[in-house]
């Protein structure tokens, strides 16, 4: 009974802490702008199944992709086992889901195998991070804390797998000693039963308790820690894929109030179906945290800093300052910094800093070729170029802060309908003396 009370307190504390975090983040979301209406749920479901659960994008890098996919699928299976542990912990039962029969055996067996696979994959990941120099994990945005954060999460997952395997092994051992039936199927743990063969039952039971409690408590701590880490990814990536932009890759969307203004300029009698006063005057493009859309913010929270975007960015590859990963990390960091002030004082809150310049320099923004390689590569459908172009929109339309040659280009387009300073009269010169042959 004491155990049950303790368990209830632990889970309650986790839930309270998690709720407080969630409320804080939801308030930040309230400060963001609309992006697109979430429609086509069936299509979204398919996208989620293929890209999130099917891991199709991460498999573009076959080896590390497969490692990640195995960890992800294993995680999904083990999650069911964790649910059982919570029921057992609250009600003082043992293996409460065993009534599921064949499915239970399947669930336990795949969890048991997954624990081993994940353990091995995590050791490989840790080894790679610590021993090998992976270029993708470096860059101006990757501070010491980013690396520590990554390693802490990996160590926690490794600890979770070791304790899970430990509790399965001791469970099987105890049952065998007492000549009782083992509930569930443990193909891996049974292989390791020899490890505890000379241990007396009383000690085994202590070990079992240690494994059981340290496993479930680490899960609770992990859940509380995640939202403060890049590994918030674990919670946010599947929703981010579900809520991804369903339109053409690379597509830029219309800015409603600019469209309206230009329409009126070209046709003063154009009927919009609503009075001008209904559309609030707002800032052109993105300068700071309050200008981003909920989707931009969700993207930034889901990013786990894997750097696949930066590794394929032509600007980054050729030594420019731009790193699409940094754009996402900066957006997240800026909301963390300014969010509380916005929530407290409203959207007009000004702390004399901004996302542009204090975090992201103009130099970075102007280096993008909008080639969309970053967005294509992102395993969870983050769109970096959209954010970059929105920040350019701010620079151009609010500040006129444009690199000199682009200013000339804009003038040319405006005056003679081409990016170069040639006359429209010359547009047909290509056809001069063209000899053609008909079929």
């Amino acid at each position, binding site marked *: 009974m004491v155990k049950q009370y303790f368990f209830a307190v632990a889970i309650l504390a986790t839930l309270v802490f998690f709720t407080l975090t969630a409320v804080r983040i939801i308030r930040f979301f309230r400060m963001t702008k609309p992006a697109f209406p979430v429609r086509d749920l069936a299509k979204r479901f398919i996208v989620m199944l293929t890209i999130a659960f099917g891991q199709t994008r991460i498999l573009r890098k076959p080896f590390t992709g497969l490692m990640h996919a195995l960890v992800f699928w294993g995680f999904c299976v083990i999650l069911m086992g964790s649910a059982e542990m919570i029921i057992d912990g609250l009600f003082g039962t043992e293996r409460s889901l065993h009534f599921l029969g064949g499915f239970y055996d399947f669930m336990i067996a795949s969890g048991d195998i997954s624990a081993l696979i994940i353990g091995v994959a995590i050791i490989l990941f840790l080894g790679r991070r610590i021993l090998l120099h992976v270029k993708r994990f470096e860059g101006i945005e990757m501070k010491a804390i980013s690396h520590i954060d990554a390693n802490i999460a990996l160590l926690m997952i490794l600890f979770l797998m070791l304790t899970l395997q430990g509790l399965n092994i001791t469970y099987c051992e105890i049952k065998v000693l007492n000549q009782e039936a083992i509930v569930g199927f443990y193909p891996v743990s049974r292989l390791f039963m020899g490890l505890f063969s000379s241990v007396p039952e009383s000690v085994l039971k202590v070990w079992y308790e240690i494994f059981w409690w340290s496993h479930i408590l680490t899960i609770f701590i992990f859940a509380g820690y995640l939202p403060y880490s890049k590994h918030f990814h674990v919670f946010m990536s599947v929703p981010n894929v579900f809520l991804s932009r369903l339109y053409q890759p*690379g597509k830029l969307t219309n800015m409603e109030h600019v469209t309206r203004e230009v329409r009126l300029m070209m046709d003063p009698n154009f009927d919009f179906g609503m009075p001008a006063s209904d559309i609030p005057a707002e800032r052109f493009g993105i300068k700071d945290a309050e200008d981003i859309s909920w989707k931009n913010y969700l993207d930034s929270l889901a990013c786990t800093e894997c750097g696949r975007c930066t590794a394929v960015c032509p600007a980054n*590859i050729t030594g420019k300052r731009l790193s699409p990963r940094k754009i996402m990390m900066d957006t997240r960091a800026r909301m963390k910094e300014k969010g509380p002030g916005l929530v407290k004082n409203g959207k007009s809150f000004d702390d004399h800093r901004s996302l542009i310049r204090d975090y992201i320099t103009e130099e970075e923004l102007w280096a993008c070729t909008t080639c969309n390689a970053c967005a294509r590569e992102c395993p969870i459908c983050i769109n970096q170029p959209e954010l970059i172009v929105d920040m350019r929109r701010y620079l151009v339309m609010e500040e006129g802060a444009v690199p000199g040659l682009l200013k000339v280009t804009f003038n040319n387009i405006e005056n003679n309908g081409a990016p170069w300073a040639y006359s429209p009269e*010359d547009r047909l010169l290509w056809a001069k003396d063209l000899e053609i*042959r008909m079929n």
Partner: protein
Amino acid sequence: MAEVYARGKKPEYLFWVGCAGAYDDRYKKVVRAFAKILAYLGTDYAVLGKEESCTGDPARRAGNEMLYLMQAMRNIELFKTYEIKKIITICPHCYNILKNEYPDLGGKYEVINYIDFIDSAIHQGKLKVDPAVFEDAKVTYHDPCYLGRINGIYEKPRSVLKQMTPHIFEMQRNKSFALCCGAGGGQMFKEAEKGSKEVYMERTEEALGTGADVIATACPFCMTMLTDGIKYKNKTENVKNLDIAEMVAESLNL
């Protein structure tokens, strides 16, 4: 277009030439080649000539939404005047914005990329290329971002090339993994930011690394970039940068 329309005719297609086709001396040759193909096929088309104006793409991607909208709305009005329904484009940037972004402003057309057009003409047996012309050429194809990654056109350019030569060498980064030439997003019209290398050099080196003697492209800006790259590498003598339309026209002895 204005003359044809004044005579009471409505051509089936508008051939959208684009700024590079109109003003870039190297790329004018590509437009000429494609115009020859259109004539060879007896395509019923017209061009806007001096009435054509920038789609607004470079302005939009450089953040100047206002200028983009003015260009787009002007063009949409013009298309309306001439009752245009089908547009053939060569430049992938024009193609993308006409096809995917003009509809948001009410400009809905059937927009056809020239590669698609050539490919279907070949499949219908209307274009019979002479496989002897490029028989010995070693060709590598550079995927333009706005044709490949953005519009998913990867196979058709390769299938057209295969009609002309069996020797096609893929770069390591190809199709959806292809590296940009460095010209997109307004970069064509500005100096590059400080870095250790130019993007087009990185891509040119990769293309040259395949051992190809023809780098085939399907975008005016990619062509400018890669031609410059070949020049800086002093390979102008041995390596040619050709547009797929030029290769097709040559294979037809046009």
